């Protein structure tokens, strides 16, 4: 939201000038937050209030500011953000401003512009009157990069629009929470996100498959609840192995026993897809007849499979250049409203790193450390559910289906 800082000085308490200004801001549809408040010690001392005024639009903000200026609240002169050229490709200038994932504006030529898109741990590049968060490896020599902290406004996390969802989950991550309620809330959040016309991202780990939720998740994709999938070689390969052989890492998903020569299934599956050329082609040829990846292909749900150093194969669809994989993930971010991070530490953190704070994050893992790690790395909006991810996803899928009928 656009905002400006105003200063109200003088005998603003006894004269009720301060409440008048604050009430006026609210009456005009604005919001305020104190940045500084100094109360005069003696009767003749002045008091000083520095107030940040916010409104939904720039125009509304200007109206509020014009109104309260008549009541004595002056705009505080602020400085433009300082811009310095990037010295070489992939290198920011010294003292470059490091972004957060929170909504950020910078002041250029006296005007505030929103940094769009915003991503944490990036620099801010200003080009053609637009500001965007740019990852270090993408900065080009000569690009104008914001340095220092002047002329930058980061909207505090607490001021973000209350979504009304997950309110009860806002306490620290814990396994001591009623699961049925959380399943219902997760289903409701997915439904609300879709209703708002926004996309739901699933970031999944292989445990989804080998713990038995593969079919449930495939069903969610089939029913249109998932719009994007981020995963690694493992989830896709487990899913394909289970489709081709009924096993995950050689263990029968139905019987829970190691299948004869089961350990070979994994490699045979990846070899088969490599032979065919791609997952989509395997679906087209009728080789891949069920599972998460098949539903993605049929439903046209984009997936980004990011490789890692311990991958088997990998599948031909896996992007093994990590920077390239990051960019492929970034390309899917516009329009995202919710990220479900299920049973994967690596991909959850990688996704958390590039998500703006405005995207809701629900992280489901048996290990509470995953959510803690996400938050520690700056994805403060993550809400954690510590439980068996597969069971949770099965129940969420069931809940969504049940409500659909």
């Amino acid at each position, binding site marked *: 939201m656009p905002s400006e800082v105003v200063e109200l000085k003088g005998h603003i308490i006894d004269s009720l000038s301060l409440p*008048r200004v604050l009430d006026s801001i609210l009456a005009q549809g604005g919001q305020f937050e104190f940045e500084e408040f100094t109360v005069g010690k003696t009767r003749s001392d002045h008091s000083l209030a520095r107030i940040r005024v916010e409104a939904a639009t720039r125009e509304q903000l200007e109206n509020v500011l014009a109104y309260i200026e008549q009541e004595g609240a002056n705009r505080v002169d602020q400085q433009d953000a300082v811009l310095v050229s990037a010295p070489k490709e992939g290198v920011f200038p010294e003292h470059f401003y490091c972004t957060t994932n929170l909504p950020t504006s910078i002041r250029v030529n006296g005007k505030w512009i929103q940094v769009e898109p915003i991503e944490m741990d990036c620099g801010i590049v200003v080009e053609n009157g637009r500001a965007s968060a740019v990852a270090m490896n993408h900065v080009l020599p000569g690009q104008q990069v914001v340095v220092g902290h002047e002329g930058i406004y980061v909207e505090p996390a607490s001021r973000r629009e209350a979504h009304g969802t997950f309110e009860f989950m806002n306490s620290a991550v814990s396994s001591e929470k009623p699961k049925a309620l959380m399943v219902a809330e997760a289903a409701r959040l997915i439904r609300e996100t879709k209703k708002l016309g926004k996309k739901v991202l699933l970031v999944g780990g292989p445990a989804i498959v080998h713990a038995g939720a593969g079919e449930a998740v495939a069903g969610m994709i089939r029913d249109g609840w998932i719009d994007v999938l981020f995963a690694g070689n493992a989830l896709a390969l487990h899913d394909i192995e289970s489709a081709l052989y009924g096993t995950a890492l050689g263990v029968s998903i139905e019987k829970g026993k190691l299948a004869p020569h089961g350990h070979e299934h994994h490699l045979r599956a990846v070899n088969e897809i490599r032979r065919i050329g791609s997952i989509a082609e395997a679906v087209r040829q009728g080789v891949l007849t069920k599972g998460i990846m098949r539903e993605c292909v049929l439903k046209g749900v984009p997936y980004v499979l990011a490789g890692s150093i311990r991958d088997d194969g990998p599948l031909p669809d896996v992007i093994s250049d990590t920077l390239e994989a990051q960019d492929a993930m970034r390309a899917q971010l516009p329009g995202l409203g919710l990220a479900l991070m299920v049973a994967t530490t690596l991909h959850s953190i990688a996704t958390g790193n590039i998500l703006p704070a405005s995207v809701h994050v629900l992280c489901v893992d048996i290990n509470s450390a995953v959510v803690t790690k996400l938050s520690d790395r700056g994805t403060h909006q993550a809400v954690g559910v510590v439980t068996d991810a597969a069971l949770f996803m099965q129940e969420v899928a069931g809940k969504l289906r049940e409500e659909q009928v």
Partner: protein
Amino acid sequence: MTKFLMCPPTYYEVSYEINPWMDRDHPVDIELAKEQWNRLYETLKSLPNTEIELMEPEKGLPDLVFTANAGVVHSRLFIPSVFKHPERQGESAYFTKWFEDRGYQIKRLRDGYLCEGAGDVLKAKDTWFGGYFYRSAPQALTEVSELIGSEVLPIRLVDDRFYHLDTCLCPVGDTAMYYPRAFDEYSLAVLRNRFPDAIGVTEEEARDFSCNAVVVDKYVVMNNTSKRLCAELASRGYECIEIPLSEFLKAGGSARCLTLRIEE
């Protein structure tokens, strides 16, 4: 000793319209105006321990007669007004020179915010009040408070007929009389709190500029007003001295506007 600065209405007229009272179609009867002004002058001069200083009128500055708007006077300090309307801006030089010639320290408002002097900044009981919105800006009042080293409580005016604070609030001893509807709810709450036993003025009395009165000792010098208000003042030990000032009401001013208190 109470001392006032006044300026004879030699060139007084309504030649422009800068407030709801002014109407060029209702011109001033200059002879009557002079007579009314003289009566005010003589009356004030006759009050105990009261002196009047006069300044030279100036052709082309008809409102110079309203000396209350010259600036803010505090002890030997003079803060010249920053007039809103170009029609009155020429007055500043004359007023400032008058105070300069008499050895006053002149301090100007730095930031160019409007302030129309004692018309808006006045002391009641032990507190300074500053009216704002029509002619003065709250930012200027903060600056005035810095210059005089005293608390100045901004008072928000909401009725353009009572565009200066001295048209709707008049200090009377330890209390005040005021027209409540001239202020917004916040300022009214402040005034009620500061003057719990204030004298409320009716709309009609306010239109007669009853609040624009000069109070010296136990005398309240004002334009013709109601019996009720005089009785109310009498019950508090004050004597009403009514002087018809109809010709000055045509320009939106009365007894207090025609005087500037320069010494207590």
